[in-house]
C-alpha cells in the first residue's frame, strides 16, 4: 500500500515567540526539529509498506521546514512535499488541514495516511482527523499498533482509549494518528543521509494547489486568538527539609492532613 506521512516542523526548545497582534506563533527564522511523534509515524509507514510501495512525506510550513523533511528522507521516505507560501501563515488546524488535504489530492490519494497524534507546539491533535474528514476517509487516533490485513484492503490497529485498548479493523483508504508506544524510531543510516542530501524536496505553493488567499492561513481560520495571559503556576509552598530535626515529621503530618481533607484516607 502507498503511504503518506504528515509531518510538522516544531520549535526545538521552549524558546517560542508569539505574534502579539495575531496571537499566533512566529515560525520564520526559528530553529526547528521534526515533531517527535511524526518520526514514529514515518517509522510506522516504513514498517507497514510492502516492497515497491511508496512512502511520501507531506508537510506545511516555512521554507526552513525543508531541513526536517530531509531528515524524513534520510529515514527512508521516497519523496517529500512541502507546501509553503506566505499565504499559509497563521493558519489554525482547519486551515492547515485544508492545505494538507489539497496536497494529498494533488499527489493522488494514498491508501494509508499516518500522522503523529499531536505536535509539541500547537498540541491540538486535530489536524489528522480534519484531513481525514476533508478527504472523506475514516480516521483512528492514538494508535499503538498497526498491521496490514492479508487481503490488502484494510488495516488492524490497537488504539488507546480512556479505559483500555481498542482493537479495530479499518477499510482503506484511511488515516491514523500514532503515539510513541507504536515503535522505536531508528537513527538514519549513512546511506540514507547521503540519499537525503542528493534528493530534492518538492515545494508547492498556494497557486500550485489552486487555493486562494481566502482559503488558507489566518483569513481562512475559523478560530481567532483574542487574548494571551501568562498564568502563574507558582503556589505558596510549605517546605520541609528531611535532614533537619523534626521537619520530616512535620511534613509527613501535613501530607496526612491534606489527604484527610481530600477524604482519601
Amino acid at each position, binding site marked *: 500500500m502507498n503511504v503518506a506521512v504528515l509531518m510538522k516542523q516544531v520549535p526545538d526548545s521552549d524558546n517560542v515567540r508569539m505574534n502579539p497582534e495575531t496571537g499566533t506563533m512566529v515560525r520564520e527564522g526559528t530553529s526547528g526539529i521534526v515533531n517527535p511523534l511524526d518520526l514514529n509515524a514515518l517509522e510506522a509507514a516504513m514498517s507497514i509498506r510492502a516492497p515497491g510501495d511508496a512512502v511520501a512525506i507531506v508537510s506545511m510550513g516555512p521554507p526552513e521546514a525543508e531541513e526536517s523533511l530531509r531528515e524524513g528522507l534520510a529515514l527512508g521516505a521516497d519523496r517529500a512535499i512541502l507546501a509553503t507560501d506566505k499565504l499559509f501563515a497563521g493558519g489554525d488546524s482547519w486551515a492547515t488541514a485544508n492545505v494538507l488535504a489539497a496536497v494529498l489530492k494533488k499527489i493522488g490519494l494514498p491508501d494509508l495516511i499516518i500522522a503523529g497524534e499531536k505536535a509539541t507546539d500547537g498540541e491540538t491533535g486535530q489536524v489528522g482527523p480534519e484531513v481525514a474528514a476533508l478527504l472523506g476517509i475514516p480516521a483512528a487516533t492514538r494508535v499503538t499498533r498497526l498491521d496490514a490485513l492479508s487481503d490488502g484492503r484494510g488495516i488492524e490497529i490497537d488504539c488507546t482509549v480512556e479505559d483500555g485498548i481498542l482493537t479495530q479493523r479499518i477499510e482503506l483508504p484511511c488515516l491514523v494518528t500514532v503515539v510513541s508506544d507504536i515503535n522505536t524510531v531508528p537513527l538514519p543510516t549513512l546511506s540514507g543521509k547521503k540519499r537525503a542530501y542528493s534528493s530534492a524536496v518538492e515545494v508547492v505553493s498556494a497557486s500550485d494547489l489552486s487555493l486562494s488567499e481566502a482559503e488558507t492561513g489566518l483569513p481562512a481560520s475559523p478560530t481567532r486568538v483574542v487574548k494571551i495571559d501568562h498564568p502563574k503556576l507558582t503556589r505558596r509552598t510549605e517546605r520541609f527539609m528531611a535532614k533537619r530535626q523534626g521537619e520530616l515529621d512535620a511534613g509527613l503530618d501535613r501530607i496526612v492532613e491534606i489527604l484527610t481533607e481530600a477524604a*482519601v484516607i
Partner: protein
Amino acid sequence: MNGAKDESDLRAFGDIWVLGEAKPSGELASTVFELTAKARELADDLSCTAGTVCEVKVILILDSAVSGEARPLRTGYYGADRVIAVSGERLPADRAASARVLAHLAAKHRPAVIMAAATAFGRSVMPYAAALLKTGLTADCTGLSIDFETGLLLQTRPAIGGNIMATIRTPYRTPQMATVRPRTFRVPAPRTDRRAILEYPDIPDEVKIRTVTTVSFKEFDERDGALRERDVIVSGGKGLRRAEGFGLISKLASLLGGGVGASRPVVEMKWISYPHQVGLSGQTVSPKVCIVAGISGAVQHLAGIQTSGRIIAINRDPEAQIFGVSDVAICGDLYEVIPLLIERIERRRGISK
C-alpha cells in the same frame, strides 16, 4: 484582530450542545455531567445576551450492541433540556461515522455551540465533524464563558507547554466547537426535580455507514490507565533511579486508592508503560491530590498536573523546579520519605477503624 467585519456581525445565538459518550460498560461517562452543568451556565448567560431562550441539548451516540444502561435522562438533573440519542451497532467506535451523525444533526438544527470532553472519542469525533461543518474547534479548553457583548463563546486553553493561556473565539462561523479537558468543571449536586425530554431522530442510513469494525476491547487492569478518574495520583520520575522504584510508588498509590503516574523520561526508558505518562505528551490530570516523587518539574510535566487540587513534591534536590509549584515540598530521599509516609497513613487508618 477581527478583520474589517463589524462586531455586530459576530452574534451567534442558539442552543448549546454537549456531545456525550458512554463508557464501555454502557453507563454515561462522568464528563457528560461536567459538561452538561457547564452548558447550563453558558445557555443561561447566552439567553440573557440573546433575549431568547437557548436550550441545552445532550447528543448521545450510543452502541446498540452494549446492553448496559446509559440512562440519558439523568443529564436532566444537571440542566439538559433535551437529549438527542442516536444508536447503532458499534457506532461510537467508528469515529468518522459518529462525526457524520453529529455534523448531520448540527447542519439541521444549527446550534450556537458544541462541546465535548477531550477524550479519545471527543478528540477524534469533534475535529472530524468540525471539518465537515467547515467551522472552528478549540482543543483541550480549561475555561469557557460567554462574551456578554457578542454572545460568542470565549474558549481558554493552555498553549506553548502551559506557559501561556490563550483565549480563542470562533467569530464568523457556527457552530463554535470546543473540546474540554475532563475534570475541568465540577459536577454539581443533581437536581432530581429537573426533567429532560428524550428524542430519537431519524438519521439517513448513508450517514451511519461504518467502515470500522471493533475486534476486541481490553480493559486496563487496576495498575494501568484511567488516571484521569483518580482522586489521587502518585507519580515517579528519574529520581527513582531504577524501574523497580515504581513498586514503592504503586504501593503508596494503591494505599490511597489512586493511580500511578510517570514523567516522560522514565516512560521513554520503558520503566513503565505509556498510559501512565503525565504531561504534555501524555495525560493531563487534575486529581484532588497529586504526589510527585523524583520528578524535577520540567514544564512538560507541570503542564499536565497544574490544575491538581494539591501538589505534594518529594525530591532530593532543594533547587528542583517542582518545589515552586507545589503546596508541600519535602526535600529528602523518596526511599526514606515514602516508606515513612506509608507507615503513617496505615497507622492513621488503624486508629480510625
